[in-house]
């Protein structure tokens, strides 16, 4: 492992699904302690980008590489990428009937423990771990007994994603439109959760359409993605400019 390497580096990545090229030569470097915001019009490839990093099997990579701490992760299964510390907060968290949130969260936690040869925790121990995390996203312990995302409101689903991120203590967290569909109170809760989670050893990639999330979370960089490429990179001010001008002016 090379300590000087970026925590995540995307090199000239080309990705297609069903013969449709979606990412066209994408480059991105993310260092420890950085928050990157990726903005861009619908259909520019933002969600594809997040799923490809997590290892979704539906996409095929025709060229380029994804490096995690200096090593390629292209050959790794999604669960191993997760164990290494890559987390994806889904734009539309899926419902899993019949599986309780508590069992799901414990299993996820223990899978990681096992991966690092650490002892797995029993349900009682886990309860004290998870209860502490629940307060960080302002969720009631009652929701542990509900099935994963089943019947959750939009806000609850998103909070559940952030809860999982905190629980798994991931190093690179990609949040795919975690702010969409949230009312202002929920947005504040989630932003606080994210800010408290963030530290100099972690990195976060925020995929968003709106400037308003960036009022609460201060990004190190703002990137604009269009047509499968990053076409502009700037500071937090770029987001404000986009908010007033839209994306059209970037097309040249």
């Amino acid at each position, binding site marked *: 492992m090379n300590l000087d390497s970026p925590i995540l580096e995307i090199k000239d990545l080309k990705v297609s699904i069903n013969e449709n090229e979606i990412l066209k030569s994408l480059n991105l470097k993310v260092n420890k302690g950085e928050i990157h915001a990726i903005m861009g019009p619908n259909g520019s490839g933002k969600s594809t980008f997040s799923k490809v990093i997590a290892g979704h099997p539906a996409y095929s990579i025709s060229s380029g590489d994804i490096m995690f701490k200096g090593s390629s992760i292209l050959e790794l299964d999604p669960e*191993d990428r997760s164990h290494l510390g890559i987390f994806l907060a889904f734009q539309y968290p899926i419902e899993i009937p019949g599986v309780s949130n508590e069992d799901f969260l414990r299993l996820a936690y223990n899978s990681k423990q096992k991966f690092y040869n650490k002892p797995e925790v029993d349900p009682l121990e886990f309860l004290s771990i998870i209860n502490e995390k629940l307060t960080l996203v302002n969720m009631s312990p009652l929701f542990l007994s509900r099935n994963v995302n089943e019947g959750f409101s939009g806000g609850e689903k998103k909070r559940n994603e952030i809860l999982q991120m905190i629980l798994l203590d991931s190093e690179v967290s990609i949040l795919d439109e975690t702010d969409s569909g949230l009312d202002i109170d929920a947005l504040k809760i989630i932003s606080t959760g994210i800010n408290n989670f963030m530290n100099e050893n972690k990195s976060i990639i925020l995929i968003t359409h709106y400037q308003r999330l960036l009022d609460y979370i201060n990004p190190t960089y703002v990137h604009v993605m269009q047509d499968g490429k990053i076409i502009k990179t700037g500071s937090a001010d770029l987001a404000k400019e986009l908010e007033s001008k839209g994306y059209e002016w970037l097309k040249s």
Partner: protein
Amino acid sequence: MKYNMVKKSNKSLNQNITQLVNKTYQYGFSTNIEKDIIEKGLNQETVRLISKKKKEPEFLLKFRLKAYKKWQQMSEPEWAYLKFPQIDYQDVTYYSAPKSQKKLNDLSEVDPELLKTFEKLGISLNEQKRLSNVAVDIVFDSVSIGTSFQEELSKSGVIFASISEAVHDYPELIEKYIGTVIPIGDNYFAALNSAVFTDGSFCYIPQDTVCPLDLSTYFRINDQNSGQFERTLIIAEKNSRVNYLEGCTAPQYDTNQLHAAVVELVALENANIKYSTVQNWYSGDEFGNGGVYNFVTKRGLCAGTNSKISWTQVETGSAITWKYPSCVLIGNDSQGEFYSVALTNNYQQADTGTKMTHIGKNTRSRIISKGISAGKSKNSYRGLVSVMNNALGARNYSQCDSLLIGNLSNANTFPIISVQNSTSKIEHEASTSKIGEEQIFYFLQRGIGLEKAVELMISGFCREIFTELPLEFAAEADKLLTLKLEGSVG
């Protein structure tokens, strides 16, 4: 450091699920043993020969011959959603038994080859079962090999024997009850069974008795060309209670084997019978070659007031399953229950469900059916809830859920409800869901492997059924489903 712990092949998740559910059948071996076998084919002489070999009393021979005559006039039912080639009933062996036919006093006298077989199957006729409080009867091809704890049980007056033994030792009970719940002409396969049944189990629980052990029968088809036609009869007298478990496996042959069983239950006043099955007959290979054709008629008669019969089944094996464990609720306030998980994979076809016939007042029934279809299989629920005009205040609740794995499997429900009075309350709920790629990916992204993910979802889907199974079955059933039919049958 290079992260190449796992070589990733770029297959889709669905393919991986398929591999996961396609583990090979671990009961596919056959036992090489000297057999007493009769010639293939079926005619009146075959029926007489079977009866003669079993030294049966006259009434039973008459019963068989009548059934045979009836069977000849009937034809195979065609209403089920099943497709299979015409069965040549003359190409089946109707009697096959291990040769040593002397009466065994002790299980140590059983042919060691046979004992080895049952050890491989994870069935032991010894102390182990005693510890788990289960008495076992084992039926190998056509005959019962041995029944454990008979002595123990007889102390409390419980009779647990092979039906052949019972015919000799308790002919009056057999004559009184056989064919009363399922008449010989009930359906094509029941008629066939009534003509040629070879063995099975008989249980009699006397009045005011709670059976001290769980009773269990283990069925094994061994011979390639023989059919297995077992017959089970359980009588629970007034205020008695019994738990009965049934397990089935068969060797792996590329031809199809015929299995047509009949199970009759009678519950008298306040009696309670709980009947659980884990059916894991060989289901054929991944191309649909071989496997058991399983045509079963199971019916319970809640004859007495406040009696209760509960069927729980986990159906994972057989190429063809045709099975509808039913309850006839005659006694007032009697209850019938049907809890079922049916899992099909590859080219398996299952048409299974139940019939609840409400005749007595305030009778209640509950149906929970869970169908899981993977591969190119067909899985159908077929149910009939019928409430007669005197069954005032009858209640039924039915729930039929289907779970699809992959894109090529097929799930159907055919519920029929017929109500002839206005004071009854009937509820029916149904759902279909699918284990989708995105759900699996959600698990994987959180670090949970594919196998665990599928196990968790399937066990969540089946939870209501597994809680109905006896403890030693429940844990097994969970595993069995995850490994697609494999794991040991309790």
